[in-house]
């Protein structure tokens, strides 16, 4: 592929649907957790759109939106309202979706998304509105079945400004949004079950052009990687069309992870007239300042606050970002920092980043007792375990084991730092005729040979000798001999 980056700029805006972690649905008392449930069992007459049913707004959903506003650095509207968006589809029981077209609850905001090179991109948030999800259709040969378990699930749709200009930035934005929404407790963040879905609006224009190109919207991306890949693909696809003198069609496109391509789904000409109107069944939501403050005070530490807190750890930004991928780990590092200080926190941070598998999302989180971690750090400081052994013990602790000293004893990982005992082994090694060439090499200034001797000591001690001490004793004894 030609590199179009010198010739074209891309402009990206992202809409993100976040499923709220409420117990019940947005307007009905039905269970909001429909994962793996038998179709149409997590429903209430309201979700079926039966005659005479009225929506009852879930207070918890509004509360979570207020929390989301804090994470998005956004103001909360004092008065927000709900509107109806009409279209006919079998997964939409009322014939309209309840959303916030005119007066959303979450107003303008911004987030800073960190990039791999250590810089960050600021993306402004246009607004975020609360709305209900539709159900699900499953198509078979000649017929389709409707499952309304998901119908009425509360969402917020976060609409960014078009401040994103590369696939890497798009991915960084999506990733940071995910962190913010999970940290704030707004969503469970189960990406596999579609808890966060991204729509990427992308257009290209010749470098330096003052007008934007025609955009396409690639819908329903459910991983950070697919956001990045879809943006990359769309950029090249659009550039190639422009190079061939063709026009970009404004349309909705779908993404396939398997083929790595976007395909046309619906052009603007087929766009529906949604006939938006205020929903008279739902009175305006009036949020008082005191309520907003009270709710937002309960929002736990956000990624930016952790970054601030860890600024003196002197670890790599990539280490920090990989820890922040999981709120549990971030909490752990901060707890270690609070109880054990910088050195311990830095050790734990490096262990987490280097030895745990951290999924983008939804990985099984492990955790350990802070006191046990501090005990392990102390053992490292006292040279009681090797760094390899420490990593192994750390993994054991995270997997549920406790008391690192007992553990190290059981596994035979404790280092021997007894000078007399190691000295005896060193003596034996030095006395071994097989060692004489190495001893001579060292005496004549070839220091490399010491590795062989340390290795022999480790072997004879069954790996338990403190290697630093062994080395020191070897040098001392050769010098004195």
């Amino acid at each position, binding site marked *: 592929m030609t590199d179009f980056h010198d010739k074209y700029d891309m402009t990206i805006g992202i809409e993100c649907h976040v499923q709220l972690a409420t117990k019940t649905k947005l307007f009905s008392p039905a269970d909001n957790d429909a994962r793996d449930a038998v179709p149409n069992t997590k429903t209430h007459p309201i979700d079926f759109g039966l005659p005479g049913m009225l929506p009852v707004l879930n207070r918890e959903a509004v509360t979570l939106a207020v929390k989301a506003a804090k994470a998005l650095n956004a103001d909360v509207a004092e008065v927000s309202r709900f509107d109806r968006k*009409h279209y006919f589809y*079998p997964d939409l029981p009322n014939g309209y979706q309840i959303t916030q077209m005119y007066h959303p609850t979450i107003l303008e905001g911004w987030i800073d998304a960190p990039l791999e090179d250590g810089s960050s991109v600021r993306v402004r948030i246009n607004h975020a509105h609360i709305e209900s999800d539709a159900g699900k259709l499953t198509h078979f040969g000649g017929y389709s079945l409707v499952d309304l378990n998901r119908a009425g699930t509360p969402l917020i749709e976060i609409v960014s400004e078009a401040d994103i200009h590369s696939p890497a930035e798009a991915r960084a934005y999506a990733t940071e949004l995910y962190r913010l929404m999970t940290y704030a407790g707004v969503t469970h963040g189960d990406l596999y079950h579609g808890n966060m879905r991204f729509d990427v609006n992308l257009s290209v224009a010749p470098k330096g052009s003052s007008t934007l190109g025609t955009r396409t919207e690639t819908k329903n991306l459910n991983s950070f990687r697919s956001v990045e890949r879809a943006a990359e693909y769309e950029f090249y696809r659009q550039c190639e069309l422009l190079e061939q003198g063709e026009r970009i069609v404004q349309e909705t496109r779908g993404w396939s992870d398997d083929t790595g391509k976007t395909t046309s789904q619906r052009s603007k000409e087929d766009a529906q007239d949604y006939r938006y109107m205020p*929903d008279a069944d739902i009175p305006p939501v009036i949020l008082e300042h005191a309520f907003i403050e009270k709710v937002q005070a309960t929002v736990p530490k956000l990624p930016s606050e952790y970054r601030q807190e860890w600024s003196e750890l002197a670890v790599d930004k990539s280490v920090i970002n990989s820890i922040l991928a999981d709120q549990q780990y971030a909490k752990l590092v901060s707890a270690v920092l609070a109880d054990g200080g910088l050195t311990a926190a830095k050790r734990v941070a490096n262990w987490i980043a280097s030895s745990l598998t951290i999924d983008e999302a939804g990985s099984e989180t492990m955790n350990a007792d802070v006191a046990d971690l501090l005990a392990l750090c102390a053992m490292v400081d006292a040279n009681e375990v090797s760094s390899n052994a420490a990593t192994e013990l750390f993994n054991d602790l995270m997997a549920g084991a406790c008391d690192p000293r007992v553990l190290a004893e059981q596994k035979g990982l404790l280092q021997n730092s007894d000078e007399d005992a190691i000295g005896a082994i060193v003596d034996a090694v030095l006395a071994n005729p097989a060692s004489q060439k190495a001893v001579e090499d060292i005496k004549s200034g070839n220091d490399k040979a010491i590795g062989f001797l340390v290795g022999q000591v480790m072997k004879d001690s069954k790996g338990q000798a403190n290697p630093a001490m062994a080395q020191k004793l070897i040098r001392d004894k050769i010098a004195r001999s």
Partner: protein
Amino acid sequence: MAGYIDGLVQDVRSGKTTARALVEQALEKAKETESYHALLSLTAERALERADAIDQTIAGGKAPGRLAGVPFVVKDNFLAFGAPTTAASKMLEHYDAPLQATAVEKLEAEGAICIGKANLDAFAHGGSTENSAYGVTMNAHDTTKVAGGSSGGSAVVTALDVVPFALGTDTGGSIRQPASFNGVYGMKPTYGMISRYGVVAMASGTDVIGCFAKDAADIALVTDVMAGQDWRDMTTLPDFFAPQDTVPEKLRIGVVKDMMTDDVDASVRQATEAYVGRLEAAGHVVDYVDMPIVKHTLAMYYIIVPAEVSSNLARYDGVRYGLRAEGVKTLAELYGKSRSEGFVTENKRRIMIGSFVLSSGYYDAYYNQAQKARTLLIEAYNKLFESHDVLISPTAPTTAFGIGENTDDPIKMYLSDVMTVPASLAGLPALNVPAGEDTSGLPIGVQLTGPQKSDALLIALAQSMEEK
């Protein structure tokens, strides 16, 4: 002063009669008056079971409730057990409700017994009950005349003494106008006073639940039982309704001049003036007030309400319940044919108007404009209520018109709502009070309208005039 229903309840409680006897009597009366076609179904089996249960409660010495044994009828757009809830449409011909409307539940909790379901214009679209998919209801006083509507069946069963009270819904006059045409009381409460939960929605912003009865005290009692906040309906207000025994002296009452024009039948104007004369004689202070915005209210109404209708009827798509067309091949056909077969002409007319006024590019010109005008209407009322306690006008410009007389002319049909629509758009309480009859013996009604939450005052005022 206690009304007719109070007396019945006393008789049931004292053993002078039984709930079963009252229900049997109502069912018999329903049969006798079958030819009026006021009822779409009877819920006899369930009603008799409930009657026996109430009689047993009384026999056991327990309190049977404030409406013990009193039979009633619901308009067939209330979800209620014992018979399908059809909304007088083919769409819901076989729809059995899985639950009951809050209003019905509250009445039953006080011992009232639903014996049947009354005819209406399909989905409550209309002012004559001629738009029912199951045939026309005849006026209680002249079978060649319409019952009015859309709650025509409920008004007629009340007028014919089948039951002491009946429930209706009023979106733009659907209780008051048929009450006027049949000579009974009909109350449209303040918007939000009674839960709409379990009632087939027409226009969410103006739909209210109310009742028909033969005296004002009965209206007060039934309204009192139904009123109050319901968590299932977010638009309900905390209960403010408290029946009043007396009315203040020297109420300031305004006659709305713009509802007394030459377009109004002379007999109707005369009856209204006569009622006004009696109010004055009772010591109240009456004057004539201008309300020029009245002439624009029908235009507002027939934009806002069809918009809501088009939205509220979108759920009837043949997918989950209700009529589903046979022999369709595509989804579009399923929608098109099911809705085409399930809705009557007037439903379709309103869906089309509503879809049009909400469509992109027209929303601001129609819907938004109508909402702004509605705000002006509310302001005009507020201004009048600074200097007046109650407004009075005829309820309808004419007495009941002939069956078939207006069916080809929807505009003429809509004009019969001209007096009732303003209070609906403003969310105000309004009460139809029987006020004589025209030369051919057809009933005339006057409409008392008050500020929000003045429901009890309106009923008490009407009651005080009954006694004179």
